[in-house]
């Protein structure tokens, strides 16, 4: 037992949870706990109250609603891993989730917890950035929707107010024939990635790129979209020339620097991984078209 003492709350509804967050001082929301509990054990976090969302059934599950896929914030990463809906509709996420932690942590970790923790190299925030996810949050004063690009404010910092809870994540899958690829680099399988690249590529019958997404995880303080790279792709002919130009843009990002990995190394990875992912996404797009 390592955490500092706290009072444990286990509300059974979202309104009760929001109420608790409003009333209690120094309270933290507990989702799957695969990041927060290590922080408690290290005493990097020592809240006086933990509000566990685990008993709120409404917050769990994946469903299709109109042309969107909607995830309850407490949907476990395992539910994504084993969802045939996700394999069919969001192959980019399906590919990324298998590289997220280990089987034993995916079994408990949640999509909402991952987004709120917002580790710069985490897979699901990177996918949400790539797919322009919309995040539903609720507080005592009502609910609002935040675009992923606005939600991720800075290093492990979200746009959530202290009394707000993330309740759902909405993603509109791409349709038609497109290619996807998620590639990350970690020293050991399941470790935090040093960097990752997520690519979506729509190619028309003549090989022209009509839509492109280039997202990077682990390179900047938050997962980011590389608009300069996307600009190199859209309207260009799919192939090594356009991909090299886009990858070069990824290598120019103002990258994180830490004692283990200098910025130039992350830039190098950004360029290499995005180049590989573009090639793979293109191959898949072509295979789809035949």
């Amino acid at each position, binding site marked *: 037992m390592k955490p500092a003492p706290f009072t*444990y709350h*286990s509300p059974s509804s979202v309104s009760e949870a929001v109420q608790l967050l409003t009333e209690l001082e120094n309270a933290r929301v507990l989702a799957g706990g695969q990041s927060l*509990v290590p922080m408690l054990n290290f005493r990097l976090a020592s809240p006086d109250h933990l509000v566990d969302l685990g008993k709120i059934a409404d917050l769990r599950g994946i469903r299709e609603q109109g042309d969107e896929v909607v995830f309850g914030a407490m949907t476990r990463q395992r539910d994504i891993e084993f969802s045939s809906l996700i394999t069919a509709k969001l192959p980019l996420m399906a590919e990324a989730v298998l590289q997220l932690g280990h089987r*034993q942590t995916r079994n408990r970790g949640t999509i909402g917890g991952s987004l709120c923790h917002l580790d710069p190299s985490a897979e699901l925030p990177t996918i949400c950035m790539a797919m322009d996810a919309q995040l539903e949050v609720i507080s005592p004063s009502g609910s609002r929707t935040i675009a992923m690009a606005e939600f991720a404010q800075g290093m492990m910092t979200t746009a959530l107010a202290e009394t707000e809870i993330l309740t759902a994540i909405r993603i509109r899958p791409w349709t038609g024939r497109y290619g996807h690829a998620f590639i990350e680099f970690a020293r*050991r399988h399941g470790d935090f990635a040093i960097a990752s690249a997520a690519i979506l590529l729509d190619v028309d019958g003549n090989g022209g790129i009509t839509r492109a997404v280039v997202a990077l995880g682990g390179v900047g303080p938050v997962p980011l979209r590389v608009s300069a790279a996307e600009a190199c792709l859209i309207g260009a002919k799919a192939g090594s020339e356009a991909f090299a130009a886009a990858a070069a843009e990824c290598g120019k990002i103002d990258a994180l620097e830490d004692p283990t990995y200098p910025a130039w190394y992350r830039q190098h990875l950004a360029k290499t991984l995005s180049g590989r992912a573009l090639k793979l996404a293109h191959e898949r797009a072509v295979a789809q078209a035949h």
Partner: protein
Amino acid sequence: MDTKRIRLTVNGKDYEREVESRVNLVDFIRHDLGLTGSHVGCEHGVCGACTVLVDGISMRGCLMFAAQADGARIETVEGLAVDGKLNTLQESFWDLHGLQCGYCTPGVLMSLTEMLREDLSPSEQKVREVLSGHLCRCTGYQNIVAAALEAAKRLRESGAKA
């Protein structure tokens, strides 16, 4: 001190206890219930020594609180042997030298139990993927992989359940 009253089953036996909220599940199992088969290594989710099954699913016993296991069905390494006789998976580990010091073994066995219940014909790749969540400082993993594949084979042949 904040405490919670919890009821849960561990290896088929019911327990009811008052537990301090900040006590994690594996410490509760070891200290309060006296089941010291599950081990504690890193206490932050990295090593896998504490892995137990919660409602049939492998989880880190150090990354959840005992209070969160209220109502759950827990399985630990003590639940594997039947009437004091090692089960097929354990026997395969014995025969193929799948352990040395044995520190990592209780967690490894629980993750492999989960895998074998789902899939009796796992590829080596799949076994390694499951084992990636476990650190073993002794074996170099080769014999663990071999023992897992052997257990799958024996279970297929005998028609027994993992």
